[in-house]
């Protein structure tokens, strides 16, 4: 392998037969280019699907209510459904052992003011568990805790962008802001992978909101994080069970999707994994097809090349070359060409993918198309192996031809 003379022989052979070498390299480079692009685009599609739900816990179930759109049990259409604290407590008591996290939510839009800076933001009144349900990342201070809820404290956790809007570079934790006329203590700053909109939010204790803004026990939404030990089907069944019971409890028609909707991440996850699996199947099929076409291409070229060089091998053997040295030379040349060409294809593919970047996100749902190192290494191994086989089989045959026959040929 590290015989300098052998390498010199190979480079001379490649160099003196440039067209041939480039042609065989091109087949491989092209196959790998297609392979890389294909996998990159598939990954981009996958990233899009994953990214669509990245800021919500993957075990989240959301119960939301509006007005009824169907009459039920003598009750009219257009009746406003209202979730209350007792519904929240019912869920937590009934499903205690199936629930990991739970939070009520009240959505408000409030102006928040600090000194001379003020703007209107979405303020959600939540329970402490909400931090985990929404995958909120605390970067400074802390999130709401149970004591905040019990004491109905006027505490607020603000998003990174609110902090930038109001405080700029100055510290915000420990400062007081004016929220819709009341003074709140900033206890924490958070960021969120869901994007800018998610970071222009603020959280206050649900109990505080109920007391100050209406003095009632109304809530807008119930979020539940189901036990992660539940498998997908059990989780989906759990979501359906909550939906059925809530409908019965609130007197809602079983088919009235407007009045009560339950969004279960388990279903989304199942859908995504089904789609991803189908995508992976297609990509694997086409990708390996492309690779095989490339391998067959280089095998063909190698067979031709070796036929062309049979006489040369005969001469070499007459001069004292052992069969193993001929086979070694051809295989090494073939592996060298496939590896370099494969690397060129791979680099080109990666480069094209990086050019694409996120530009296709809007129209084609492709986010950050790229190939993983495992795929790259795998493809390289396949290439080297195929170069090895493509070179070895015909070279072995050629090396075993008696020199007399090789020299006679043509």
């Amino acid at each position, binding site marked *: 392998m590290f015989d300098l003379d052998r390498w010199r022989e190979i480079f001379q052979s490649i160099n003196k037969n440039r067209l041939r070498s480039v042609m065989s390299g091109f087949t491989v480079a092209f196959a790998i280019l297609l392979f890389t692009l294909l996998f990159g685009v598939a990954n981009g599609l996958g990233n899009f699907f994953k990214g669509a739900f990245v800021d919500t816990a993957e075990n989240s179930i959301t119960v939301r209510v509006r007005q009824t759109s169907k009459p039920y049990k003598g009750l009219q259409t257009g009746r406003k459904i209202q979730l209350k604290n007792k519904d929240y407590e019912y869920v937590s008591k009934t499903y205690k052992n199936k629930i990991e996290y739970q939070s009520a939510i009240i959505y408000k839009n409030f102006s928040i003011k600090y000194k001379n800076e003020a703007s209107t933001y979405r303020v959600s009144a939540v329970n402490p568990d909400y931090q985990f349900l929404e995958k909120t990342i605390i970067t400074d201070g802390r999130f709401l805790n149970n004591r905040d809820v019990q004491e109905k404290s006027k505490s607020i956790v603000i998003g990174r962008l609110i902090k930038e809007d109001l405080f700029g570079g100055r510290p915000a934790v420990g400062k007081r802001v004016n929220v819709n006329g009341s003074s709140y203590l900033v206890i924490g700053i958070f960021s969120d992978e869901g994007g800018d909109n998610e970071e222009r939010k603020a959280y206050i204790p649900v109990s505080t909101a109920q007391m100050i803004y209406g003095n009632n026990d109304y809530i807008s939404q119930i979020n539940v994080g189901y036990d992660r030990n539940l498998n997908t089907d059990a989780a989906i069944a759990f979501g359906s069970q909550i939906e059925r019971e809530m409908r019965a409890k609130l007197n809602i028609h079983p088919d009235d999707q407007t009045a009560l909707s339950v969004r279960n991440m388990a279903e989304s996850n199942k859908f995504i994994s089904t789609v991803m699996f189908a995508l992976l199947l297609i990509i694997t099929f086409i990708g390996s097809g492309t690779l095989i076409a490339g391998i067959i291409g280089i095998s063909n070229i190698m067979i031709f090349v070796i036929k062309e060089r049979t006489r040369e091998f005969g001469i070499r*053997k007459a*001069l004292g070359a*052992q069969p193993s040295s001929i086979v070694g030379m051809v295989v090494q040349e073939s592996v060298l060409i496939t590896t370099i060409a494969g690397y060129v294809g791979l680099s080109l593919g990666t480069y094209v993918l990086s050019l694409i970047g996120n530009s296709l996100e809007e129209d084609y749902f492709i986010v950050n198309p790229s190939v993983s190192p495992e795929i790259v290494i795998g493809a390289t191994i396949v290439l080297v192996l195929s170069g090895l086989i493509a070179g070895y089989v015909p070279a072995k045959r050629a090396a075993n031809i008696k*020199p007399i026959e090789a*020299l006679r040929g043509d």
Partner: protein
Amino acid sequence: MIKIEDLHKSYPIGKDSLHVLKGIDLHIKEGEFVSIMGSSGSGKSTLLNIVGLLDIHDRGNYYLNGQLIKNLNEKKAAILRNKFLGFVFQSFNLIAYKTALENVALPLYYKGMARKERLKIALDYLEKVGLKEWANHLPSELSGGQKQRVAIARALVTNPKVVLADEPTGALDSTTTDSVMDLLKAINDEGMTVFVITHEEEVAAQTKRIVRLKDGVIISDALTKVAKAV
């Protein structure tokens, strides 16, 4: 140097087999300059291929440099060829993409010699055949006679025991034929055993011993005037 006893060789042709060599006895001593004459189909090329370890015989004994040639695999044959034999072919058989110098140096590569050393030796041999100035030319830039002289330099470069030449002048005109034969004579004069196959009487006449082959048997074996003159 070469000792052959009752050598037989046949080639399968379809279901039949063609009996090409039908019991050859030949003894060539060191320093001889022998030509094998015969029309095509007489078996002379087959004989050279067997002597050159490019082909194997069916029956009989072949001793090369005192060593019995038997059950040779490709690897052993390659080593023996490299060590004992130098080939000159009718169609030169130079490697097209290598320069004259690299072609001459190739047998030394298979001997395992370092590059610098083998190029130096190869250049010496090119000088010997009068082609030092052509060392860096490709075969396609050389005339037929020059190519054959490069091939002779290549055959000599490992300092073999025997030089085997298969119709070395077959592709050359009469002037270059003479220069190639002169070269072979000069090599023989230095003590090298030279074994030539030809169908040209003029070429054979310049060697020292002519063995005539017909239908797979030796019909005559005699010294030439050249040999007697010495």
